[in-house]
């Protein structure tokens, strides 16, 4: 220990007096030589002979000096620092090379860092609950009765339910507000393992009738509406016309089942109301696996419990949740995003691979030019390992420089990439460049530096000393090195083809989506959601009258054209579903469940406002009131599905709990209610429209919250303000929310494919740029190497055009080989992308041809510049130079 301290101190002292040390070593060895020389002189040799003899006996003085110096150093760290400084000087001396290489790497590393921060936030980071690995989602949907039955039966898990999207009016505290709420079983917070930060969360028993008039606030709502007043606990607030006592405030960042949830209320478990208990509030369940229980046991138990619980329903439910499963909660929540993120992460990985290949081939060219330097180093006694280490240090430094630039770039990429992740998924951590991502980028940089440095480094350390020094470092560079560089370029081109094909297919997809006829005309229409209080809609006629009055007064506003109201807007995300029986398709209870129809409640102007064509029969009008003959309009596809070849007019539809039938009076054009790509959920069998005064929702009441659809030339803000004022004057307890232009609704329905397309296009652009730079670099380098040959060709009569052709041919050959490989890979890899495509096949020949064309054009461009330079060679000079 003492020895170690002494030696550390001596080394530090030597470090501070480095020059002195170098001089001392030099002097010491010189003295030794002089003494030896004197000794030989004394034994009768001439002074010159004595000098030579002494030198001979002494051996490699430079190496010896280095060895002595080495003794005083702090081993590897100092060697690395020395190498790094040398590398820095070297890079600074060739700014062009450094810039191209560092930018190439910045593109690759930056893209990867950005994607990684998304993947990290969405796929890797655990959910913000204690022991998140024990949380599972029970897939399928469960009414309250089933939830209670499962809670009672299960031995392996503790089960909780949360009904999402329960919108609630908060009244009595300033302006009436529409809140996003969730009705939850009282044990939800226990299952998730999160407590209130103020007051208490719900406790077992809070969901029994008579004790359930409670509310729990989100931190955001507490701050926004209650001024973060701790005194809110115990106060009574009015939600949906029901007085509820505030029992607590949840901590910031807690959001379940969605991040946007403002308020939680207890589910009401009342077995005596069997329609409500078994028929209402179909929700997914979340559960915490009990300690020491494995997932397969949960699966088995769940299957048994489902079978047993199905018997408890007051009506037959033959196929209810037949394929329900327990899946880890985290997997369930990222299901939709995972595929997209993984495809993009692989794409950006390819970009990095291209960047590495590019830099490797640049380094190879440089290594050829630096052969002499390496040979001199070796001659001066640098070992093979030492040279290898130095060359690798250089490439790692370069790569770290690229990494720093890349992180800056990543911030830009992230702003686009965020659009990929659904807003406000539960428990998603914010996406940002945090320490983890920076560490990832640093690790990636070092790895890349080693990856693209190893080939040139191995070459350099293997250099044939004598041959290199004899030829002065020229001439020996060709051969294997050139072939290696060529194959790097072909690989780059192949990868660039794969990425560009992907980008092309996604562009075709987006183009296809933009040309889809959604079945309605969104332009110039504004939608606002109006949600009158439950009292207003207690009576069906009062509710209908409220909307009639509202629409009448809206028409009187200046600058407003057609006006209508609907319970759901196309592509807006709402799903007004009803189970029905269709004429001629009797429900045989034991065999199949009733078909579910998308059932929108609309007012008479609806089809005109949205320009939805009426193909047969009539639209709704003022005569379709509460008491007149029940009527319905079906979509063309629905009519075709249930009554092919028959006249749909006069056919009848019955909602399963109704006695009476509704008569079809019209057929409307098909509308894309769910998505532009037409991907409708399989369980939904069609679409039907009901006149608002006759319409019902799943709770069997008249739809209360409706979207006001207004055609208007005015700005969104102006119209919204005017309408808010108007609604308040008709009914002060009816909050207005979600003011959106329908164009925006349509375009944000494709925001995910759009973000994916832009990212892919950006990656492909980078890949093309890198491949072009790489091709240019290799072709111009090899052209420079061949200047003698070109001189000879020109001297024996080749034309300038021949030379240009020669160089272009070389560039074209690389790109064509690469393209062929790339097309083959793209055909194989296309399947990974096919689920993201719409209206285009993953093997679309037009896209493939366009991409190959693009690369050939790039190759010609990359070959033209060095080709022109070569063609301008002065043969006399070229022949003299070598």
């Amino acid at each position, binding site marked *: 220990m003492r020895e170690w301290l002494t030696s550390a101190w001596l080394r530090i002292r030597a470090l501070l007096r480095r020059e002195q040390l170098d001089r001392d070593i030099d002097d010491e060895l010189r*003295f030794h030589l002089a003494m030896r020389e004197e000794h030989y002189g004394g034994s009768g040799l001439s002074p010159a002979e004595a000098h030579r003899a002494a030198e001979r006996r002494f*051996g490699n003085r430079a190496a010896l000096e280095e*060895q002595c110096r080495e003794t005083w150093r702090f081993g590897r760290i100092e060697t690395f620092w020395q190498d790094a400084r040398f590398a820095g000087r070297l890079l600074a001396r060739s700014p062009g090379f450094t810039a191209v290489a560092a930018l190439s790497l910045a593109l690759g590393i930056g893209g990867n860092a950005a994607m990684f921060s998304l993947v990290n936030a969405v796929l890797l980071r655990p959910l913000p609950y204690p022991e998140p690995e024990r949380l599972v989602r029970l897939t399928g949907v469960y009414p309250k009765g089933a939830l209670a039955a499962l809670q009672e039966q299960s031995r392996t898990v503790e089960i909780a339910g949360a009904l999402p999207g329960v919108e609630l009016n908060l009244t009595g505290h300033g302006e009436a507000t529409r809140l996003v709420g969730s009705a939850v079983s009282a044990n939800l917070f226990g299952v998730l393992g999160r407590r209130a930060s103020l007051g208490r969360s719900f406790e077992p028993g809070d969901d029994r009738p008579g004790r359930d008039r409670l509310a729990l606030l989100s931190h955001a709502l507490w701050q926004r509406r209650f001024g973060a007043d701790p005194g809110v606990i115990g106060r009574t607030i009015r939600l949906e016309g029901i007085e509820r006592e505030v029992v607590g405030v949840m901590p910031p960042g807690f959001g379940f089942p969605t991040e946007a949830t403002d308020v939680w209320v207890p589910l009401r478990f009342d077995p005596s109301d069997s329609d409500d208990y078994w028929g209402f509030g179909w929700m997914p369940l979340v559960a915490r696996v009990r300690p020491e229980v494995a997932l397969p046991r949960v699966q088995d138990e769940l299957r048994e419990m489902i079978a047993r619980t199905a018997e408890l329903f007051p009506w037959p439910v033959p196929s209810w949740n037949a394929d329900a499963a327990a899946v880890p909660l985290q997997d369930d929540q990222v299901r939709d995003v995972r595929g997209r993120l993984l495809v993009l992460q692989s794409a950006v990985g390819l970009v990095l691979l291209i960047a590495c290949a590019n830099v490797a081939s640049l380094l190879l060219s440089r290594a050829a030019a630096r052969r002499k330097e390496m040979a001199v180093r070796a001659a001066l006694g640098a070992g093979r390992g030492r040279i290898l280490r130095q060359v690798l240090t250089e490439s790692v430094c370069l790569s770290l420089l690229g990494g720093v630039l890349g992180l800056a770039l990543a911030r830009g990429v992230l702003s686009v990439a965020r659009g990929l992740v659904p807003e406000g998924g539960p428990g998603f951590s914010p996406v940002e460049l945090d320490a983890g991502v920076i560490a990832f980028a640093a690790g990636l940089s070092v790895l890349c530096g080693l990856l693209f440095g190893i080939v040139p480094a191995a070459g350099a350390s293997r250099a044939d000393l004598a041959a290199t020094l004899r030829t002065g470092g020229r001439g020996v560079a060709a051969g294997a090195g050139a072939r290696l560089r060529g194959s790097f370029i072909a690989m780059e081109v192949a990868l660039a083809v794969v990425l560009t094909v992907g980008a092309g297919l996604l562009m075709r997809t987006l183009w296809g989506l933009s040309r889809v006829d959604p079945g309605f005309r969104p332009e110039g229409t504004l939608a606002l959601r109006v949600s009158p209080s439950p009292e207003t809609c207690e009576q069906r006629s009062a509710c209908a009258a409220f909307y009639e009055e509202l629409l009448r007064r809206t028409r009187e506003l200046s600058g407003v054209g057609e006006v209508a109201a609907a319970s759901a807007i196309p592509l807006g995300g709402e799903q007004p579903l009803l189970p029905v029986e269709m004429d001629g398709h009797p429900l045989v209870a034991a065999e199949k469940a009733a078909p579910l129809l998308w059932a929108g409640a609309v007012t008479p102007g609806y089809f005109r406002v949205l320009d939805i064509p009426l193909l047969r029969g009539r639209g709704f009008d003022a005569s379709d009131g509460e008491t007149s003959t029940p009527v319905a309009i079906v979509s063309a596809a629905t009519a075709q599905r249930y009554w092919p070849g028959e006249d749909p007019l006069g056919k009848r539809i019955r909602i399963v709990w109704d006695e009476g039938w509704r008569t079809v009076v019209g057929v409307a054009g098909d509308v894309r209610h769910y998505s532009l790509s037409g991907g409708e959920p399989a369980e939904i069998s069609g679409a039907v429209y009901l006149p608002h005064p006759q319409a019902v929702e799943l709770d069997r009441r008249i739809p209360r919250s409706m979207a006001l659809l207004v055609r208007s030339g005015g700005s969104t803000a102006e119209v919204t303000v005017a309408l808010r004022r108007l609604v308040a004057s008709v009914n002060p307890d009816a909050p207005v929310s979600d003011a959106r232009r329908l164009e925006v609704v349509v375009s944000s329905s494709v925001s995910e494919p759009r973000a994916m397309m832009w990212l892919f296009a950006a990656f492909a652009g980078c890949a093309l740029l890198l491949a072009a730079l790489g091709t240019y670099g290799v072709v111009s380098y090899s052209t420079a190497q061949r200047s003698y040959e070109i001189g000879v060709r020109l001297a024996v009569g080749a034309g300038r055009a021949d030379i240009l052709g020669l160089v272009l041919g070389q560039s074209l050959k690389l790109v064509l080989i690469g393209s062929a490989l790339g097309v083959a890979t793209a055909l194989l890899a296309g399947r990974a992308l096919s689920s993201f495509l719409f209206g285009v096949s993953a093997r679309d020949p037009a896209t493939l041809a366009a991409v190959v064309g693009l690369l050939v054009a790039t190759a010609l461009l990359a070959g033209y510049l060095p080709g022109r330079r070569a063609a301008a060679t002065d043969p006399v000079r070229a022949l003299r130079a070598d």
Partner: protein
Amino acid sequence: MRDHRGDPGELLQGTLNMLILKTLSHGPQHGYAIAEFIQGTSLDALRVEEGALYPALHRLEVRGLLASEWGVSDNNRRAKFYRLTAAGRRRLAEEAGYWARVAAGIARIMETAEGPRR
């Protein structure tokens, strides 16, 4: 670097360190004199290569077993003189004792006429 293998009189590093320490126990000396002393005293049986001597001197110095200062040699040249430190003296004593035991052991093996019993 030159290949020293098979060179007669080549010294193992540990042994060289010990010989340097022993040489310097007679008083401060520069590198050349140390090499000459070892070679001369061993009657040319041991030859010290410069390539081994100087790294060894510097290693011993870094470890605090030797100290050095610049002085003037017999023929009036500036030379770096090494001397033993207290730690160096202790190390020499340890190594000398160890060496004596090993040498005696080796000598006994070499001088015994009988081989191991079968």
